């Protein structure tokens, strides 16, 4: 088992009021067309104005949240930068691809090609912070953020010169993406208001979303928000095995289900996966607070970023907003949070966070 690491700061750009910590999801943002787009901040504060001019939306979002996370942690230069994304900058990819088709492979803009590369956000963050340390980008569907956090945990454990790692994830939704994934039944056929999607978990499909989340992860328990005790990743998760996986994870930390104050679940209103979540939470007392977040963010590969960000806010505020509480009560002090996240392409992660 790896040593725990500490989240010093968190910053998320999401469809909700999240970028400014004081806002904390108020008022709730809901949409009626099955899509939740991120609320974008003023990027000029965080990105070199000469560079910003040719950056795509997702790049601006990713770089800003990374720079802001560093700012919140009081760090100018991280020792390493690790990023994760499921699909990278779709806008740039689509632009280059469609131009290529339309112009019959002639006279194409290099900017879109370069920015479609998955590690371009990481590269920009390294340039802006002059960080020449370890840099890595995971592109692994619903586990891209969790693998980034695991890699950070591994790095902090093995390299005594590494103390602060900037870890983040980002994904965007484009109109094309929504159309395309609709053809393989990602989305609800009959679209509810996004804030209500979890109530329609008897029908297949979910809603689409996007967002970024960046964290400064440290090996020192100083000025930290919470501890990452363990992140476990799995593919092709078995409904029958999830309870065992959870029990074994808790046992490794000498914990019982009753020790968990909040379950932050990636329920997304899709009847295909609801039984999986129902099974996952069934070992926990009825009074355990169960929270959801995909009615606030929509579903996307790195939506777990919001879950981690939310967890940091729950630890800081010591209360669960009504808009995220699905069942149970939140009267106890919040000391232990378990994030259970499943993604459409059959990945699951379990992450134990502690105060």
């Amino acid at each position, binding site marked *: 088992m790896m040593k725990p690491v500490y989240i010093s700061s968190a910053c998320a750009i999401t469809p909700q009021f999240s970028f400014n910590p004081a806002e904390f999801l108020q008022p709730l943002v809901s949409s009626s067309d099955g899509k939740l787009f991120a609320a974008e901040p003023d990027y000029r504060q965080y990105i070199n104005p000469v560079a910003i*001019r040719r950056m795509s939306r997702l790049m601006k979002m990713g770089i800003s949240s990374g720079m802001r996370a560093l700012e919140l942690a009081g760090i100018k230069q991280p020792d390493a930068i690790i990023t994760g994304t499921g699909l990278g900058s779709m806008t740039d990819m689509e632009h280059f691809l469609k131009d290529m088709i339309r112009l019959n492979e002639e*006279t*194409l803009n*290099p*900017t879109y090609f370069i920015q479609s590369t998955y590690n371009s956000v990481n590269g920009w963050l390294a340039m802006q912070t002059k960080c020449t340390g370890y840099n890595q980008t995971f592109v692994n569907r619903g586990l891209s953020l969790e693998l980034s956090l695991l890699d950070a945990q591994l790095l902090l454990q093995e390299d005594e010169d590494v103390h602060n790692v900037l870890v983040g994830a980002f994904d965007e939704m484009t109109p094309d993406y929504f159309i395309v994934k609709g053809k393989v039944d990602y989305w609800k056929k009959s679209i509810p208001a996004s804030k209500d999607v979890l109530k329609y978990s008897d029908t297949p499909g979910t809603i689409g979303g996007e967002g970024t989340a960046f964290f400064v992860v440290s090996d020192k328990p100083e000025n930290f928000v919470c501890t990452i005790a363990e992140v476990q990743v799995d593919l092709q998760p078995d409904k029958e095995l999830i309870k065992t996986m959870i029990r074994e994870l808790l046992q490794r930390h000498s914990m019982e289900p009753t020790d968990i104050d909040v379950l932050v679940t990636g329920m997304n209103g899709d009847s295909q996966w609801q039984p999986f979540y129902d099974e996952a939470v069934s070992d926990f007392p009825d009074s355990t607070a169960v929270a959801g977040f995909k009615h606030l963010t929509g579903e996307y590969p790195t939506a777990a970023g919001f879950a981690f960000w939310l967890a940091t806010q729950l630890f800081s505020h010591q209360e669960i907003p009504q808009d995220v509480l699905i069942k149970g009560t939140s009267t106890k002090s919040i000391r232990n949070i378990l994030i259970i996240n499943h993604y459409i392409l059959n990945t699951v992660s379990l992450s134990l966070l502690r105060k």
Partner: protein
Amino acid sequence: MEDLKLKLKQQIIDSLNLQGMKPEEIDDNAPLFGEGLGLDSIDSLELMVLLERNYGIKIEDAREGRKVLSSVQSMAEYIQQNQKA
């Protein structure tokens, strides 16, 4: 030539997304790269795309491109010499 240079400046602003900049702020002879506007190698490639799409002029070699693209004046002269219908 003056009309061409004015049009070219606007095309440069649009192509490189130099937000908020106006054509009159770009001096004909100011270096586009290094100092002056401070453009970089990716910008020079984008300007070559501009030349090809708007004026039918293809520059194959990136190094040759940098000489042509050193200023608005040098670009305009090159266009006049080489423009295809």
